[in-house]
C-alpha cells in the first residue's frame, strides 16, 4: 500500500515548485513588454547604422579601409562576442547559445551575461557582466576597444552570437560576422550625396558606432528572447506541476480510502469473532 505520509510530502513539495514557477513566470511577463520595446528601439537604430555602412562599403574608396582587410579565417585569431542570460530556468535559451559557440572551439570568446561569463571564465579572472543591465555606453566602450584591436592587427575576424527573437514562442541562436566588413553591391538609386571629408574617413569613424549599435541591439533582442523563453518554460513547468499534483492527489485519496476500508474490514472481522 502506498505511504500516505510520503505522498502528502511530495504533493507539498510539488506545490511549492508550482508557486515558484508561477512567480518566475509572472516576473517574466512583467518584463516582457519593456524588453520588447527596448528591442524594437535598438533594432531601428541598428538598421539605420547598417544602412549607412552599406552605403559606405559600396564605394570603391572604402576598399582600402583597415576594417575591410581580409586575413584568412584562422579560428585562434577570431573573436566572438557571446550573449547569454544572467539566469537559468529559461528552457533551452542558454544551452542553444552555448551549443552554437561550441562550433567555434578555439576562438577568443567575449562573454556578456552572467551565464556566459561562468561558461567562458578566463583563468581565475572574475567576470560578472550582466546582459540585462548592459548599457549602450558599455557597448560603445567595448566596440571602440574591439575596433582599435582589429585595426592594430590583433585579431582577424569578429563575430557575435546572440538569440534572434522571431516570436513569443520561437527564438533561435545565430551568429553574425561583423568584421571585416563585406563589400556591398546593393545601393539604391539614391540622390548623389556629399561625404565630408570623404567615404574612407567617415567609415573609419563610423565603424565603432556601427559595432556598438549592433552589440546593443543584439543584447536587447537576446534579453527579449530570454524573457519570452523563461515565460514559456515557466508556463510549461507550471502545467506539468499542476498535472503532477492532480495525479499524486488521486493516488493519495486512493491510498487513504484503502486504509479506511482496511480498518473497517478489520473492525468488522474483530466484531464477528
Amino acid at each position, binding site marked *: 500500500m502506498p505511504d500516505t505520509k510520503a505522498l502528502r510530502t511530495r504533493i507539498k513539495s510539488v506545490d511549492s515548485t508550482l508557486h515558484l514557477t508561477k512567480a518566475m513566470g509572472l516576473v517574466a511577463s512583467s518584463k516582457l513588454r519593456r524588453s520588447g520595446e*527596448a528591442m524594437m*528601439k*535598438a533594432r*531601428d*537604430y*541598428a538598421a*539605420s*547604422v547598417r544602412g*549607412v555602412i552599406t*552605403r559606405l562599403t559600396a564605394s570603391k574608396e572604402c576598399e582600402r579601409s583597415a576594417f575591410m582587410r581580409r586575413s584568412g579565417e584562422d579560428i585562434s585569431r577570431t573573436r566572438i562576442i557571446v550573449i547569454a542570460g544572467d539566469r537559468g530556468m529559461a528552457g533551452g535559451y542558454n544551452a542553444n547559445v552555448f551549443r552554437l559557440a561550441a562550433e567555434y572551439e578555439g576562438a577568443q570568446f567575449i562573454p556578456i551575461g552572467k551565464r556566459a561569463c561562468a561558461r567562458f571564465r578566463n583563468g581565475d579572472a572574475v567576470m560578472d557582466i550582466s546582459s540585462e543591465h548592459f548599457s*549602450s*555606453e558599455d*557597448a*560603445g566602450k567595448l566596440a571602440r576597444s574591439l575596433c582599435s584591436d582589429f585595426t592594430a592587427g590583433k585579431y582577424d575576424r569578429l563575430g557575435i552570437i546572440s538569440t534572434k527573437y522571431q516570436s513569443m514562442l520561437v527564438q533561435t541562436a545565430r551568429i553574425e560576422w561583423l568584421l571585416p566588413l563585406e563589400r556591398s553591391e546593393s545601393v539604391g538609386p539614391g*540622390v*548623389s*550625396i*556629399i*561625404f*565630408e*571629408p570623404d567615404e574612407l*574617413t*567617415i567609415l573609419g*569613424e*563610423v565603424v*565603432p*558606432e556601427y559595432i*556598438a*549599435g549592433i552589440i*546593443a*541591439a543584439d543584447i*536587447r533582442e537576446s534579453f527579449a528572447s530570454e524573457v519570452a523563453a523563461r515565460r514559456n518554460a515557466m508556463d510549461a513547468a507550471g502545467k506539468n506541476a499542476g498535472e503532477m499534483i492532480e495525479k499524486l492527489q488521486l493516488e493519495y485519496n486512493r491510498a487513504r480510502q484503502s486504509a479506511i476500508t482496511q480498518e473497517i474490514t478489520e473492525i468488522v472481522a474483530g466484531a464477528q469473532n
Partner: protein
Amino acid sequence: MKNLSLKISTPDGNVFEGQAVKLDVRGICGELAVMAGHTAFMTAVKPGHCDLLFEDGSERRGELDGGILNVSADLTTLLASGFRWKE
C-alpha cells in the same frame, strides 16, 4: 524661418523627432550647422555638444558621444551612440 525635419536616434530610442530651425554639432572637419534646404551630405560627428534652435527662438542643448549625421532633402538624421539633454 524654414524648419527642417530632424531625428536624433540612439540605441535606447529616439531622443528627438520633430521640427527645428538649426542643428549645431561638432563634425570631424569642425563645427557645423544644418538648416533647412542644406545640401545632402553625410559626416561623422565627434563627441561634444549638440544644440537645437527652434522657430520660437528657444534653444535646447544636448551632449552626444559621437555619431553619424546624415542630411537629406526631407530628413536630417543624427545617429548617436549616446545622448543626454542638458536641462
